[in-house]
């Protein structure tokens, strides 16, 4: 059908592509913060402690991975706490445990992840069909997730005896716990999804200019739902990982992860308005947050002040990171 071009092709003009200067802020902040703590505390810079930091980052990394896709779309997701609680209870009741005779092993884990996925779907549907802003939709889903978790809990703590699931937290490979490797795999998968799949690129594009996608004939609704479902699956896995760590299914498994994950993502350079950042950014953000929490304990900051100091440093880190991108007349929400 193509008719030969009337104009001959011009020589290509090369434009800057790779990692931009503006993305350098968070990694630099990470190095600086790490350096400061390392200088202050010999225990902090021990190999053991670095392992400990990375291990401690595992669950947050997985949750942040999920939330990053939602944030990239310009939406927000506060459902992590509820979804993780529901997944934690589900998995602990499906693998070998002290409450019932189930012993589904991996299958149980899969079901828990799928449950997370289903909750994510609910958020997405509420956003897309009922047109409820994601802030509220996910808050509602979180409440529902906690309700489901409480129902499953039914008054008796389910303790898991599944050796594989318990082993995830205990056994090590090359010095890191299996959970850490799972988290690393999640980040890798997240990055591949973000870079090489339509789902990931569209999530990015929706954050950039949703209306344009519609104008181009793309049906954005299914992708929005899919992104929330993907995020839900990550939270589900996060719930499973917490269960593995604690050896028991807790309704509170996801407490606090929603806000920490958002903080980590934003500290890493993902914009809440969408269209910028990504899984790797978030991974840096997670490490930054974990280095902070660990470092403050290591250098012996009073528990009373820890939260405050952490907040201050996060604000400072973000402020430092945005300096290269400051413009007049820039929109900051």
């Amino acid at each position, binding site marked *: 059908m193509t008719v030969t071009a009337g104009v001959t092709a011009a020589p290509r003009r090369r434009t800057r592509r790779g990692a931009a200067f503006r993305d350098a802020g968070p990694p630099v902040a990470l190095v600086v913060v790490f350096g400061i703590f390392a200088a202050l505390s010999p225990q902090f810079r021990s190999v053991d402690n670095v392992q400990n930091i990375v291990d401690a980052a595992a669950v947050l990394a997985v949750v942040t991975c999920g939330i990053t896709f939602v944030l990239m779309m310009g939406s927000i997701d506060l459902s992590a706490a509820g979804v993780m609680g529901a997944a934690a209870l589900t998995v602990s009741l499906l693998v070998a445990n002290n409450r019932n005779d189930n012993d589904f092993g991996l299958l149980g884990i899969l079901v828990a992840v799928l449950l997370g996925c289903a909750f994510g779907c609910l958020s997405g549907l509420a956003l897309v069909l009922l047109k409820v*802003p994601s*802030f509220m939709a996910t808050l509602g889903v979180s409440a529902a997730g906690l*309700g489901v978790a409480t129902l499953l809990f039914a008054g008796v703590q389910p303790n898991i005896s599944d050796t594989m699931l318990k082993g995830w937290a205990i056994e090590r490979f090359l010095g890191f716990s299996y959970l850490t490797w799972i988290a690393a795999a999640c980040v890798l998968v997240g990055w591949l999804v973000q870079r090489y799949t339509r789902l990931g690129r569209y999530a990015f594009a929706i954050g950039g200019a949703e209306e344009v996608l519609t104008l181009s004939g793309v049906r954005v609704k299914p992708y929005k739902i899919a992104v929330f479902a993907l995020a839900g699956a990550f939270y589900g896995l996060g719930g499973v990982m917490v269960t593995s760590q604690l050896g028991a299914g807790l309704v509170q498994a996801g407490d606090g992860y929603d806000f920490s994950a958002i903080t980590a993502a934003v500290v890493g350079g993902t914009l809440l308005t969408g269209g910028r950042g990504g899984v790797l950014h978030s991974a840096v953000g997670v490490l930054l947050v974990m280095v902070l929490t660990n470092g403050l304990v290591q250098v012996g900051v009073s528990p*009373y002040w820890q939260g405050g100091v952490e907040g201050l440093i996060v604000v400072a880190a973000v402020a430092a990171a945005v300096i290269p991108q400051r413009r007049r007349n820039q929109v900051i929400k």
Partner: protein
Amino acid sequence: MSIPVALQPATVSAKARPARRLTGFMPIIALAVLVAALTVADPGFLTQRSLTAASRTAAPLIVLAAGATLVVLCGGIDLSIAALASLSTVLLALWLPDLGGLATPVVILVATVIGAVQGTAHVLLRIPSFIVTLGGLSILSAVALVVSGAGTVRVVDDSAVKWLDLYVGGYVPMSFAVAVVVVALIALVLKVTPLHSWISATGYSESAARLAGTPVDLVKVGAFCVSGACAGLAAIMLVSRQFSGGPTMADNLLLPAVAAIVVGGTAITGGHGSVWRSLAGALVVTLLRVGLPIVGVPSAYEQILYGVIIVVAVALTLDRSRISIIK
């Protein structure tokens, strides 16, 4: 040069008005439906005493939500309101013995200044308000913990804040009346001054507002100030109710306050909304928080129901005619 053919007389636009007006009343309708549903579930719910108690309960949430609404209208968010209110309860409880009646305005002033500091950090450092106020939340919590000695500060002589616990005309709790007055005052000031234009322009399109010479930064800092002041006032209501201040006393009001704003139909992305809507939203949220357990819904189901109802309520109240994209 122009022939106004494509122009219909202005009467046509009147046709669209009833629908518009209906979306304006949606928060009230949602509220009425909720009260009706609770009454059906437990006929004893709809009594004068019960409503009086509910309105008294809702007062601090209304004030918190009203203040934060301004920040949301500007396109930002204030996550520090609850922590600031907690800190304010501590400060008030600590200062009441020395300052007496003067403690109230002083605490509100301090809260306003803290709001101003956060707003200034937001506009000067160019950090998203989400992050500034999240940082503010942790810092204020830490300060509250330290100054209170990590414990409750009892108010032995509460005569200076007792007036908030009285009833107007026997039935209307004073705190609720004050909350309504605050909302009315904010709404009035917005209505009769250019502030409304400035705030909406900032919220809808910050760059356009700036290029039109709107004092965007001032407006934002101002919104944070009001938000801080409201947090201070909410703290005073809490102290008058609790006879003490505590470093985490109001912390759990953050999400309900944001929920109240959104349930009221204010766009979380900024620009569109009003404090009146937040008032209705705060009442809906309060009824959900206390109504569901009181009419006997078991805890687990209560949470599920809360989640479902709040989503449905937002689906009803949000005026989508002005927002094309819901994020």
